[in-house]
């Protein structure tokens, strides 16, 4: 369960855990570490995690946040899980394109589309 000072909104759709960021800016390394730790705990609790990360409220993110996403992706994959990203603002999506991380992650327009994509 998220704690009172959680940086995430977490909800479950059957086997899928959907997380959404509370912060509009995911820039600060200390904050990113908190978010990353919180998502890692969610992954640890699942045997084959199906994780959907929604960026619906996010205006800015940094390369440190991208790095945290890569680490999360590796953790999910190591547990034979599936990770989907959704609702990424066009300006932020461009950051994924520039870094070619749109090739690494499965990115969907909406959480609904992402939910349908889980095997």
């Amino acid at each position, binding site marked *: 369960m998220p704690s009172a000072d959680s940086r995430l909104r977490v909800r479950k759709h059957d086997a899928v855990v959907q997380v959404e960021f509370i912060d509009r800016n995911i820039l600060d390394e200390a904050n990113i570490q908190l978010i990353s730790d919180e998502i890692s705990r969610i992954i640890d609790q699942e045997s084959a995690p199906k994780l959907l990360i929604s960026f619906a409220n996010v205006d800015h993110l940094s390369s*440190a946040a991208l790095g945290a996403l890569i*680490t999360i992706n590796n953790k999910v994959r190591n547990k034979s899980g599936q990770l989907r990203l959704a609702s990424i603002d066009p300006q932020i999506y461009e950051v994924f394109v520039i870094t070619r991380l749109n090739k690494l992650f499965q990115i969907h327009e909406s959480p609904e589309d992402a939910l349908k994509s889980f095997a």
Partner: protein
Amino acid sequence: MKGTIVIRHNRIEVEGVQNALDAAMSAAGFTKASLFAVRLAFQEAIANAFNHGHKTLPHDTPATVEFSVSPHEVVIAIEDQGPGFQSETVADCTLDENLEIPRGRGVMLIRNYMTEVRYNAKGNRIEMVYRRPPPAA
């Protein structure tokens, strides 16, 4: 508008500079996309200064930010007190074999979003210029 601000590694001081830049750019008529670009570059450069430049220095070691905002361009210089680094030694994070490495994207993003980027010889000072894009035809 121009200024020189000495800041330490904490969110409030970094956001203070960021907010000043945002306000100056908005007043100069820059678009939301321009603000996004400069915000991203500034955040990456200041993170590099504190997290890499000052890695072996006391946490409260300050860095200096100089900036000027005119209707045509934004110039930002950040100088840390570290030993410096050579930006060309950063691996290309877009190569297939490097895609899953969690670090090393900051410098590349700065180069993509800013019009000009240069470092001093020591490598502890970055100067970034963002020029207003020509109006869409």
